[in-house]
């Protein structure tokens, strides 16, 4: 069965979703979906082991060898992303939709698990496939499932947020499709490796330039890169908190992976940074995201919205890492994919804990919660330290590589900007800490912690973010190797 692991990675969650519809019973679906998610995670761990040992793994669907057929191709880069996505999914899925504010009626909870598994299958599919049209198909599967999940939020505004997410996401998906169409027209192939082989001959063609522009903007919308991030704050704010945790940790990360694939594997670094010279543009956009996202986060009154704007800011770090086009920069960007997934996932879950107890995520209502819910608020604060980039947290590792890359490229100003934006992160994290610990609790503040079903996943993610801040061989080591591989191919 080992040789089938790449396809099982997708088939198991994809098959799990319809089985949830047939099972229906609340307990049975929860147990089954949890088993499916953990099984998917186990496969991802096995795959990354195989890739580390033997190098690239290729799987031809239907026995049709690429470029005729669709192939799944796992190298270190996507094995890394797949592990992050399935890991966060496995930890977040068992929380379920109902625990924080009854977002879904108990008799329809099975639909939540089905949508969750579909979203996971779609995100994993985007990462695993070596066929660019297949990327679009999986992107739509994951996006449609994500719109559904966002719409399950318990306020009516969740519907509006989901709808504008749908409109923006569909525009993004359409742009991606147009780009793919142009590429297909120019080369006659949809296989990524084949595209990389055929594209250099036609790189001067306007259609290829247009294809790149469409793909860049389309993926940029899915990635919520500034200024295409408008859908993100509302979607993350009004979605059920567990969904926010999952999407914040995975959906934008997969879009980032796609951007890396496009720039380094398909179009090649010579075209993107050489002929088109978009590095300065990317840097300006990244800086804008870092600063405007962080400044907006400082001004929020709602905890989830604060975290959402903080995500916009953190995505800026990732695209900044990409813009250097160097091993250090890519390592920084890539390791931040995993690190930000752990930190932000954990912090959104901490918000879920708060909402489960207090019913609100307004910052003003957090007064004194540090004393009433110490475990929850401690998790939030530790995650916040990670966002700032304090040593011994994962955030420090990411920023270390990014600053290193900036110095390496001789751009001291960028290195300085990274440090300054970290200070802004300190401001918005401190605002929450100050309210939670240094103010008297409200009369109505709850006594006692959030249910363990929420608290355990929160601490697993936050604990992992501390662990990988110290033991960096695993995340940063693999990210560095993946970055080297990516640049070798691009050369």
């Amino acid at each position, binding site marked *: 069965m080992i040789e*089938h692991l790449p*396809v099982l990675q997708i*088939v198991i969650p*994809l*098959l799990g*979703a*319809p*089985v949830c*519809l*047939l099972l229906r019973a609340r307990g049975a679906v929860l147990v089954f979906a949890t088993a499916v998610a953990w099984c998917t995670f186990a496969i991802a761990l096995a795959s990354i082991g195989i890739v580390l040992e033997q190098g690239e793994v290729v*799987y*031809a*669907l*239907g*026995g049709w060898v690429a470029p005729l057929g669709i192939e799944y191709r796992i190298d270190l880069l996507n094995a890394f992303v797949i592990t992050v996505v399935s890991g966060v999914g496995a930890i977040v899925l068992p929380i379920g939709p109902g625990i924080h504010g009854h977002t879904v009626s108990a008799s329809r909870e099975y639909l939540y698990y089905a949508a969750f598994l579909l979203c996971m299958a779609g995100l994993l599919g985007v990462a695993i496939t070596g066929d660019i049209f297949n990327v679009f198909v999986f992107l739509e599967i994951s996006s449609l499932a994500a719109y559904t999940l966002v719409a399950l939020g318990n306020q009516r505004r969740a519907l509006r947020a989901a709808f504008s997410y749908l409109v923006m996401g569909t525009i993004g998906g359409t742009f991606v499709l147009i780009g793919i169409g142009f590429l297909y027209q120019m080369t006659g192939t949809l296989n990524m490796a084949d595209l990389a082989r055929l594209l250099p001959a036609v790189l001067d063609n306007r259609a290829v330039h247009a294809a790149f522009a469409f793909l860049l903007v389309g993926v940029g919308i899915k990635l919520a890169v500034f200024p295409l991030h408008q859908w993100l704050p509302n979607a993350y704010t009004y979605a059920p908190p567990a969904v926010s945790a999952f999407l914040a940790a995975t959906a934008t990360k997969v879009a980032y992976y796609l951007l890396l694939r496009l720039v380094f594997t398909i179009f090649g670094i010579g075209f993107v940074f050489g002929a088109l010279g978009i590095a300065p543009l990317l840097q300006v956009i990244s800086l804008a995201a870092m600063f405007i996202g962080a400044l907006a986060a400082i001004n929020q009154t709602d905890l989830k919205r604060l975290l959402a704007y903080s995500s916009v800011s953190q995505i800026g770090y990732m695209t900044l890492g990409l813009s250097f086009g160097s091993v250090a920069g890519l390592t920084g960007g890539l390791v931040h994919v995993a690190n930000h997934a752990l930190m932000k996932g954990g912090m959104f879950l901490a918000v879920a804990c708060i909402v489960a107890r207090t019913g609100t995520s307004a910052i003003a209502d957090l007064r004194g919660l540090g004393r009433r819910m110490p475990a929850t608020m401690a998790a939030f604060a530790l995650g916040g330290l990670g966002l700032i980039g304090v040593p011994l947290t994962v955030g420090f590792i990411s920023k270390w590589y990014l600053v290193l890359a900036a110095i390496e490229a001789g751009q001291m100003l960028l290195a300085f900007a990274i440090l300054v934006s970290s200070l802004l992160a300190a401001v918005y994290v401190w605002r929450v800490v100050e309210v939670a610990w240094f103010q008297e609790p409200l009369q109505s503040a709850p006594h006692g912690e959030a249910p363990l079903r929420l608290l355990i996943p929160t601490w697993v993610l936050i604990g992992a973010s501390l662990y990988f801040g110290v033991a960096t061989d695993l995340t940063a080591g693999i990210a560095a190797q993946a970055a080297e591989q990516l640049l070798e191919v691009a050369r």
Partner: protein
Amino acid sequence: MSDPGSHMRMHEKLVLRIVAKRFIPFVLLFALYVQFHGDFGPGGGFQAGVIFAAGLILYGMIFGLGALHRVVPPRALEVAVAIGVLLYAGVGVATMMLGGNYLDYGVLDSHAPAHGQHLGILLVEGGVGITVAAVMLTIYSSFGGRERE
């Protein structure tokens, strides 16, 4: 449209009712033709599913959502959505069990791969047809059911 009012209900209109009754079996039959002729000509599961669902939606429009739900209960629709996907993915799992790659239909018939491929695509397209028809009907019922709440 099915609300009582000064207008006659759709199913009280003789022409509509008779034409629909005569028409629907042919729509459903044509759907099956498109489904099974998909191997040899234009067509296939998606188109067939849409046509099949269109036939039933016509029935729902003329005779009301209640009548449609007596023909296809909402619960059955949900099961059908799942069954179609399971059939598709199940064929893939079966080919893996028989030693081929995922969706390598050739291994379904150990003597003649061409027969295996025929069987495989037939089952997969069947799965697509079932799910597409069920999803179309689900969308229609959920929108059609809204004004009754």
